[in-house]
């Protein structure tokens, strides 16, 4: 009896493993046909709530094209791309993240396909050196998210963060982990200099983890306020979090460029996706998530109380992305040193 049941179990396990093995190879194989030109693969750092709707919309519009996407932090995606390049084949066709300097370096390394979208004239373009290698598909903004239970007077200026209300309760995501956080640190430094961070530090500000986590910590009351990405914050507010997002006059704008990899076997489909992404339909979806569209003809829903895209661009702190790319490590190091009080 015992022997039988042991045998049975062993058999069951054996077959389950066979199945699992097949399943596993299916998965491993799934990107392969894409490389052969069947499935369009998108690597993006956009959160599920943003990307899934857009992909669904694209599928509806182009039923013949199969699309799959992988959503992860920009750093993780870049590491994967680096590894894929080593093995000689980038599995993705399209990349869409918020880490602008990455696009500059990829352009420099020549792995991006040049595609000047016909829609370019309808768009708000933050890149003065636009040449079609990448196109901004969203204008991310960062503001001050506050926990409305803890902070009663909305912040109007960046310098409000130095008030006692925020003492020991404000955080910026770790720029080593989050691309947007790095962007904001660089922008704020450009505008206000390191002494702004030194003052923040003096008021007990600290480094959080990921850009999402500081927002969740603000929602939970662990933080009174944080430097927050628009659509993540707005998503939580929509779900009932006791938060509000405010923009000081000097706006932190982090464009999210989209690009096609050189040698993509799905070039046609990739171009169609880029165009779809920039279309009014997709941009409306983007705006509905609580972030800024790149189209002037798309209005962000009123409830988010966000600036117009063109206006936002005008208000934003300007920076030289190429130079920013070069000084990334030094900036992060300096920031960390200041915020951890090592200096």
């Amino acid at each position, binding site marked *: 009896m015992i022997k039988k049941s042991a045998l049975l*179990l*062993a058999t069951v396990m054996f077959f389950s493993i066979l199945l699992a093995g097949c399943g596993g190879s299916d998965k491993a194989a799934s990107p392969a046909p894409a490389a052969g030109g069947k499935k369009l693969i998108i690597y993006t750092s956009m959160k*599920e709530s943003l990307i899934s709707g857009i992909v669904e919309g694209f599928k509806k519009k182009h039923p013949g094209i199969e699309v799959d996407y992988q959503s992860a932090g920009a750093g993780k995606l870049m590491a994967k791309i680096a590894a894929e390049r080593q093995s000689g084949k980038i599995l993705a066709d399209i990349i869409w993240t918020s880490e602008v300097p990455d696009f500059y370096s990829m352009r420099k390394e020549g792995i991006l396909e040049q595609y000047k979208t016909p829609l370019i004239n309808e768009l708000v373009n933050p890149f003065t050196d636009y040449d079609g290698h990448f196109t901004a598909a969203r204008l991310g903004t960062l503001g001050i998210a506050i*926990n409305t239970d803890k902070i009663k007077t909305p912040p109007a200026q960046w310098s409000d963060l130095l008030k006692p209300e925020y003492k020991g309760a404000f955080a910026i995501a770790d720029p080593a982990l989050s691309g947007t956080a790095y962007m904001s640190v660089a922008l704020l430094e450009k505008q206000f200099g390191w002494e702004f961070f030194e003052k923040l530090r003096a008021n007990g500000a600290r480094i959080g983890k990921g850009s999402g986590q500081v927002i*969740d910590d603000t929602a*939970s009351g662990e933080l009174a306020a944080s430097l927050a990405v628009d659509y993540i914050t707005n998503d939580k507010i929509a779900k*009932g979090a006791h938060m509000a997002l405010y923009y000081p006059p000097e706006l932190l704008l982090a464009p999210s460029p989209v690009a096609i990899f050189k040698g993509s076997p799905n070039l046609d489909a990739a171009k169609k996706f880029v165009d779809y992404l920039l279309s009014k339909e997709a941009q409306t979806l983007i705006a509905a998530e609580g972030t800024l569209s790149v189209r002037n003809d798309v209005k962000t829903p009123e409830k988010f109380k966000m600036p117009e895209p063109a206006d936002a661009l005008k208000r934003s702190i300007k920076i030289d992305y190429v130079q920013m790319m070069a000084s990334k490590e030094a900036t992060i190091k300096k920031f960390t040193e200041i915020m951890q009080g090592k200096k």
Partner: protein
Amino acid sequence: MSTSTQKMITPAGNTLAPKSSFGVAQIMLFLSIAILVIVVAVPVLLIFFNAFWVNGEFNLRDVVKIILEPETYKALINSLIIASGTTLGSTIVGTFFAWLVTRTDLPYKTFMKSMFLVPFMLPSFIGALAWKMLLSPHSGFINKFFINHFGFTGPLFDIYSYWGIILVEVMYLFPFVFIQVCGALERMDPTLEESARISGAGLFTITRKITIPLVLPSILSGALLIMLYSMAHFGTVAVLGIENGIFNIPTLIYQRIHQSGGSFDSIRTGTVLATVLVVSAALIIWLQRKILSKGNYQIIGGKSFRPMELKLRTLRIPLFIFCLVYIGFTIVLPTVVIFLVGGLKTYGLPFTWENLSLKNYKFILFDYKVTKDAIWNSITLGLGAALITMFAGGMISYVIVKMKVRGKGILEFLGMLPFSVPGSVIALGVILAWGGKYGINLYNTIWIILVAYIARYMAFSLKANSAALEQVHDSLVEAARSCGASMWQTLKDIVLPLVRPGMLAAFFLIFLPSLRELTVSIMLYAPTTRTIGVAIYTLNEDGETVVSAALAGIALILIIVGDTLINRFTKKAGA
């Protein structure tokens, strides 16, 4: 049989038979060495190699430089502080509870004993997540409760601290000591204590002078196991430490690799850190051997009377309540919090009916690609690693335990290697070995995680299989040979059926922990290859607290169901 006797008489028999059995032994030995070399030895050696050789030259100066960097040096110190604190705490807690459930008249002892084993199943990083929700300084439920209701101006306890990390690790690691000490106390010859009593010693004197010194080797071996584990542990420190700038070696390696974007420099820093970790681990193991060899007492034997029970008298009920409270705090409370937070619309909302739903759970299981993939990945990885390791480990153990072939010594050494290599080191080694530098690039695929799991869990399989094989006395095999069975027939008819329970044990010993694995996977995952552990961790890092809590809840259910099924099954098989 007469045919075989005839065959023996004919000279043909002599030339044919001996060659074939010789070949089998050699093939198995070769395969075993090959597996261990490829899976374990090469990755580990590559770490050393890459740490000390730069551009083909031996370079110690860079190594020293890296180690002397404040961050590295601090991480090493942190690793030591956390590991020591955890070891000390767990040893005290584990020994105390083991003593309580084996040597006293505590009520419901067997139930208590099984409850104290529960934390063994719970992944400590999920525990850390739960405790973060309970004790983060401003929003932790317990801290908030005290601030709101008792007029506390600050938090009762700040979990983002050394104390917090150590506390959480103690809660989930103490069973290592508990199990060892319980076992030793249960097996201990009760007349060792009785003879002390008749010598005139009271019960407390006996506990102090006889019982504790005698189980000291077990206590130590459990303690060092914890030390080893804690030194190389990623999850708890990642969840609770990074916030406050507390890094240990694994989290620092993770951060470096994460930031590398594929650049080799940071991997190299990683290799130096990993070397430090391996050296510390080797030191700990050496220490353990040294201490154990000195005090490995034979304390089993004699007629088994019921061991004497210390009457707790007035302390009986208070200690019972204390145990219940401990269990409530370490097991029930965190689990409940995980499930409740997993049901929230968004983190930070109070637990009211309108805020709670099963939507997140549904989302994770049916809609969310990341988590769906993660669950599927973990299950297939677990099954794959368990199955491969079960068979490979079975074969290797057979060669080590049973076969008399030349070259076995190497195998024994290689077989010991996986026991001493921490998970994050294996991960790094696997990146070096399979990252494309040597022709095969598995980086960013699921296969690299599989390879790493196999390397990491080989030790478990070797242990379980060897234990099973030790039980198969040589004479059982020889009896079959003398009955006319060839070596293959003997393996098939006698050895395999007898070690099947051991192989099954190995399978589950690997399958279950790999379901919740984090330390290795976090270093190796790619966007497409998240495991459950990685998904929980990254979702939490991304601020998807409620989703990550819900996934953690589902992981807990998976683990508990799996464990229960296995206990059922093994009990049935054992009966």
